[in-house]
């Protein structure tokens, strides 16, 4: 079977990429989804706060997904549900499997919008046994919000990312007692609004600079201990606090679903753990990535706009309109943990840059260097590691770069 464009993953990214590619003239599209419905993680994120940028109103996750589902239903785009992509090749062959068997689809372009997965207890080398009662926050969220199953009654949460905070409120509402949230960093990684409305509203304490130091229970979780950590994130001994809980939820980070990239034999960005792309979001000519499968986003609005851009770029590629000039590297400098894209073409007409800073900065200068020569600087307010920064970088800045583009964030003290 042949298809002009195959899109892998029909969450918010895949739906937006498909709709956008269709509107920009690519009509022969196949959208592949491994779940039984489209919409991805939004379907289980029943809280509100989604879509302020995209729809100028505050929607719940399922309502945001519903808008995209309703929009794509108006377009003649093929969607295969319950279908898992097992392999893609550099020649753009997509191999997938569903109840009808194994399928080989020769695509002319591919967009990977495969989302991300949660770091688990293995990934953070959690101490102790592996008793029943330890879940990732998203796993507990799916069980509760789609199956109506509350995983436990006495809960502790490790990690103060937004999913952890949202689950602290959600489990409290459903009658569980949440004893606290521990965060290894001295600041929370969640939105302020979630600290107030998910923790303070339910009198749930937030233990900053704390982590789990012990787990009790062999078959079933019986208790956990938390301890303070020093500035090097090492546990300070003899100050442990014990909580008798049957459930521990982990909200300790997300990693792009990068197994297809790995199969292509391509290196990953060591910081984002996602693919390395150019300004068109291509990892190889005609193979694009967007959304949480490229780098982990905080807002679905950012996923949606990045994926729409990937849809436009794929259409341009199919019309042979993307640059193939030599490329220049983008390097994250001082206080910048990563930049996406990692490369751009010499003749680039400008693009949207995404980056994260390494530490909270109330006021900072974003600086753009050609090697050591400062080209441009921009003052920005309220930069936080947990909030991705996007910046539209213009053609005139790019045109004056001869070696490589280094981006730094310098704190302004007042």
């Amino acid at each position, binding site marked *: 079977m042949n298809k002009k464009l195959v899109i892998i993953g029909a969450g918010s990214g895949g739906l937006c990429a498909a709709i956008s590619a269709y509107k920009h003239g690519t009509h022969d599209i196949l959208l592949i989804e491994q779940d039984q419905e489209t919409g991805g993680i939004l379907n289980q994120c*029943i809280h509100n706060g989604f879509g302020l940028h995209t729809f100028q109103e505050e929607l*719940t996750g399922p309502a945001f997904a*519903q808008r995209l589902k309703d929009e794509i239903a108006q377009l003649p785009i093929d969607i295969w549900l319950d279908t898992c992509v097992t392999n893609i090749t550099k020649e753009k062959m997509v191999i997938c499997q569903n109840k009808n068997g194994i399928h080989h689809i020769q695509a002319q372009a591919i967009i990977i919008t495969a989302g991300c997965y949660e770091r688990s207890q293995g990934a953070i080398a959690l101490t102790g046994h592996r008793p029943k009662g330890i879940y990732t926050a998203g796993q507990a969220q799916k069980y509760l*919000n*789609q199956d109506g199953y509350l995983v436990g009654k006495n809960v502790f949460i490790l990690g103060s990312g937004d999913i952890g905070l949202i689950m602290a409120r959600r489990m409290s*509402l459903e009658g569980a007692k949440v004893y606290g949230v521990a965060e290894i960093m001295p600041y929370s990684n969640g939105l*302020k609004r979630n600290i107030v*409305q998910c923790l*303070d509203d339910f009198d749930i304490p937030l233990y900053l600079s704390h982590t789990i130091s012990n787990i009790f229970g062999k078959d079933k979780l019986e208790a956990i201990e938390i301890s303070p950590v020093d500035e090097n994130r090492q546990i300070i001994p003899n100050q442990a606090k014990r909580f008798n809980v049957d459930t521990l939820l982990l909200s300790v980070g997300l990693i792009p679903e990068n197994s297809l990239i790995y199969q292509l034999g391509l290196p990953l960005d060591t910081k984002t753990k996602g693919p390395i792309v150019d300004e068109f979001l291509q990892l190889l000519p005609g193979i694009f990535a967007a959304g949480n499968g490229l780098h982990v986003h905080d807002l679905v609005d950012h996923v949606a706009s990045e994926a729409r851009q990937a849809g436009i770029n794929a259409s341009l590629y199919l019309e042979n309109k993307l640059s193939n000039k030599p490329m220049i590297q983008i390097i994250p400098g001082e206080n910048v943990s990563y930049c996406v894209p990692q490369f751009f073409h010499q003749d680039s007409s400008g693009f949207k840059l995404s980056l994260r800073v390494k530490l909270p900065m109330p006021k900072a200068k974003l600086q753009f260097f050609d090697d050591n020569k400062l080209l441009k600087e921009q003052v920005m307010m309220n930069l936080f590691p947990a*909030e991705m920064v996007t910046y539209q970088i213009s053609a005139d800045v790019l045109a004056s770069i001869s070696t490589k583009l280094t981006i730094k964030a310098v704190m302004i003290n007042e």
Partner: protein
Amino acid sequence: MNKQFICICCPKGCIIDVTYDHDKIENIQGNSCKRGASYVQDELFSPTRMLTSTVKINNAMHKMLSVQTDKPIPKDMIFPIMKQLRHICVEAPININDIIIANILDTGVNIIATRSMEKITK
């Protein structure tokens, strides 16, 4: 009385210290704009929240249907409303924004569906 708030109006997150009498703010410090003052006023004397939750659904893809209040509710109504929702079971098909419970507990607020779910025959 004294109380401290983190303002949630913008990402700056001002820490605001307030001294108040039972229905009046006497002194406010730490807010960098007017919005902070009005946020604290509401949080002190008439806090409201949007509530999102789920109700049971029969003959649908999932066992639970996501719902929300169509307006913010007084904060102290959160748990009474949660208790009501526990007894509700609806039948698919459901369309987004369908009213699941009208005027719940006489609050003037409706509980509405936040997604559509088709009827499926197993």
